[in-house]
């Protein structure tokens, strides 16, 4: 039993008043002559037991009356079954209202968020001044405040653009309520319980804290755009969710007078990145009219036909249209490189020039700004070539012969998987340039490294070293090297947020762009089974996945108490009436 006003219990000291009055009244009584004492003694002897019982009864009634009134003033709360009464012990409660983009899905004619918001509203409305309540939205910010403030926040909540990791949210919420010196600790998860919303790890829900999870509603199918990449003249539209065939996609490029539109009904194919973790299941490739676009930064938007979740049906993208690189190759670069450059020259992807030089370990011509260096064919020249690299300030050099293996590269997907049969290990050297990074690896060891204005290859671009020159991705690879990688690829970053594009600038130069959009995992609306949600959020001992009715009944049930003050007041009235009756009868 707990009390809303425990200080009122100090009044229990007043329960001693009847006993004290009884003792204080035992003073020496006045003495009077009375001849009929023998009758008196007989009457007292006969009624002594009855009088003692009455005295005891009166003492008990009066003491109980005071105790009852004091207890009623203290507002006692007793644990009751769920659904009975509305009072509960002071409770620290965090309401996790998942207003991530997926909450904007329309199910049965209404927003998923509306269904969640009703429950959040009911929880906050059920709190008492003795409770402490917080609200966590998809941005992960824990909001405190008065009940009215929280209700206003809930009422004004709209679907956001950030993904909420429920495991992390529950972890933070549980830590928060666990730190509160209140008898009750509760975390309420109001989410559409997407399977993809459960991140790794254990939320570490402490003992004594309850996690109530509202069961997911009806699942609906959804298809969304997970990401859009522009590479080598084509837009690769990665799709999430089930993929009907074919997928109608609309590409809009530019804005204002430059605005153009490309309608495409692309064939969705399983992409390389198809994965349950990223939510990407398929990709549609749409060619862009690169030749008609003037060099510079371009913004486009890919759009699918509307479905239940509109938030992921459109996604912007940005890319830079660069002028053709001026490239030349030294004789040591090999015939395959020379042939590839010829193809690119014919396609007007490059022009002759010395801005970018591809060498075969020999020294590049003077004045070359950027160099792509293959190892020399003659191992005896390796030391000379390393010294030349060191002289240019390159912090990498060719080392011992490495083991054969396939190429792995995220930035150059066209060469991924190509076999390498001969290579040199690329190892750091001296106090050279520190900005080097590996663009491709073989067996986990750097195979293609960028060190400032120098690209260092671990193998010669020759079929005796690697199968890459015979692969279809070779020409695009060379295109990427000279037009994109070596000139310093303008980075297009992605970020979570409302769909839009922001450019990073320095002075008048545009350095890159950031494309904002929802997390691709938000497009997968398939809910997690209750067992999975229970296990992910802390286990069945602390987590309950409940239907809306069960959720309403279980809300604060762990600390739900019935206020006994009204009953005690009725009892006090009964005691007072009984005391009056006994006292009147006695007198």
């Amino acid at each position, binding site marked *: 039993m707990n009390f809303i006003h425990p200080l009122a219990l100090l009044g229990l000291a007043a329960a001693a008043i009847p006993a004290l009055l009884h003792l204080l009244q035992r003073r020496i*009584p*006045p003495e*009077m*002559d*009375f001849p*009929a004492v023998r009758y*008196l*003694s007989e009457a007292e002897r006969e009624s002594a037991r009855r009088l003692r019982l009455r005295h005891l009864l009166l003492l008990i009634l009066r003491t109980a009356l005071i105790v009852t009134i004091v207890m009623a003033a203290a507002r006692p709360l007793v644990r009751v079954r769920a659904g009975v009464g509305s009072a509960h012990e002071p409770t620290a409660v965090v309401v996790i209202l998942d207003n991530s983009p997926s909450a904007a899905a329309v199910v049965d004619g209404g927003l998923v968020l509306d269904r969640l918001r009703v429950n959040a509203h009911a929880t906050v409305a059920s709190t008492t001044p003795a409770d402490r309540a917080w609200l966590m939205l998809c941005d992960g910010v824990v909001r405190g405040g008065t009940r009215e403030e929280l209700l206003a926040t809930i009422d004004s909540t709209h679907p956001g653009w950030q993904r909420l990791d429920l495991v992390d949210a529950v972890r933070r919420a549980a830590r928060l309520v666990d730190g509160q010196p209140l008898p009750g600790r509760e975390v309420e998860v109001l989410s559409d319980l997407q399977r993809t919303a459960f991140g790794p790890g254990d939320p570490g829900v402490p003992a004594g804290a309850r996690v109530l999870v509202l069961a997911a509603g009806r699942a609906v199918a959804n298809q969304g755009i997970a990401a859009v990449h522009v590479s080598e003249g084509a837009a690769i539209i990665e799709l999430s969710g089930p993929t009907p065939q074919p997928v109608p996609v609309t590409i809009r490029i530019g804005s204002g007078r430059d605005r153009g539109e490309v309608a495409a009904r692309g064939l969705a194919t399983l992409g390389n990145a198809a994965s349950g973790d990223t939510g990407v299941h398929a990709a549609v490739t749409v060619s862009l009219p690169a030749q008609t676009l003037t060099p510079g930064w371009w913004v486009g938007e890919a759009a699918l036909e509307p479905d239940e979740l509109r938030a992921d049906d459109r996604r912007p993208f940005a890319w830079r249209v660069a002028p053709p690189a001026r490239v030349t190759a030294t004789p040591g670069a090999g015939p395959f490189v020379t042939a590839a450059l010829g193809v690119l020259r014919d396609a007007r992807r490059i022009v002759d020039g010395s801005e970018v030089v591809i060498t075969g370990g020999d020294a590049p011509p003077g004045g070359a700004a950027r160099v792509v260096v293959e190892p020399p064919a003659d191992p005896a020249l390796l030391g000379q070539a390393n010294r030349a690299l060191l002289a240019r300030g390159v912090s990498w050099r060719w080392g011992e012969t490495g083991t054969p293996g396939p190429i792995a590269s995220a930035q150059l997907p066209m060469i991924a998987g190509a076999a390498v049969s001969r290579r040199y290990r690329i190892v750091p050297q001296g106090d050279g340039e520190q900005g080097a990074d590996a663009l491709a690896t073989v067996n986990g060891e750097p195979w293609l490294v960028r060190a400032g204005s120098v690209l260092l290859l671990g193998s010669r671009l020759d079929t005796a070293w690697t199968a890459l020159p015979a692969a279809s991705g070779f020409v695009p690879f060379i295109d990427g090297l000279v037009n994109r990688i070596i000139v310093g690829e303008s980075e297009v970053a992605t970020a979570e947020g409302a769909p839009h594009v922001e450019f990073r600038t320095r002075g008048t130069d545009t350095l890159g762009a950031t494309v904002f959009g929802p997390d691709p995992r938000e497009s997968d609306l398939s809910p997690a089974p209750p067992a999975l949600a229970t296990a992910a959020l802390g286990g069945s001992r602390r987590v309950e996945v409940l239907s809306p009715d069960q959720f309403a009944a279980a809300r604060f049930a762990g600390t739900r108490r019935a206020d006994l003050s009204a009953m005690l007041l009725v009892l006090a009235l009964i005691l007072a009436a009984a005391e009056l009756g006994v006292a009147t009868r006695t007198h």
Partner: protein
Amino acid sequence: MPQRLDLLDPAEVARLGGIEIVAEGVVEGFLAGVHRSPFKGFSVEFTEHRAYQPGDELRYLDWRMLGRSDRLFVKQFEEETNLRSMILVDASRSMAWRGAPERLTKRAYADRLAAALALILLRQRDATGLITFDEQVRQVIPARVKAGQWTRIVRALIETPDGHGTAAHAALQRLTALLARRGMVVLVSDLLFDRELALAALRYLRHRGHQVVVFHLMDPAEAELGGPPEVRFRDPESSVSVVVRPRELARAYADTVRREIAAWRKACRRHGVAYHHVLTDMPFGMALRLLT
């Protein structure tokens, strides 16, 4: 129209003067209210007839004469002069108590009642005597009918001080020796003594052929308990005390008193003793009428 003293409040009557005055006044009023001597009984004999007058009691109508002559006659009786009456007045300490200052003490009431009774008896030429007693016999006025007897009785009442304890049994035993001839014995007492011993003596008197009358005096405050919330009541005779809350004990006490009176009445009736319960606020005339 002059008021009848026998029907007034005893305390008011007592303020008129001494015992003699009060008793005479009461007796005058009392006798004026009755048509005949209230004490006709075994001690009277038939003398003659006279014509019936309205107001005569029908019990004295001679039905035989009515049957023979078809005329109404009533029988007249002549009182005997040899009735011997002895009045016993309890002068114990408990009798000198009153529950309220505006009332007479039980002793004062008993004295005046005894004096009035003696005057009535003497006016009927009955030999009347008096015994006062507490734990022992204090005054003995043998039963006489000669002149000045009432004065002696009144003087004895006045001269008997308030006693201490009560020993009715001893006084009644002493009485048996003083009453050689059968007669009437009137005991005026609050009966706050051992009932069995007293009844044994009364039974003995009845056995000797005496007519025994008991006036059980009680102050109204003794019949109905009252007082402060808590009080120590002390028996003036035995100094036994008891602490009680009168309001709590009132009902039980009233029940006890009723039982005690009922027990006295039942015991007296069983042994042929006339028992009368008299509160000290009862007019003397009404108390005397109990004897008729």
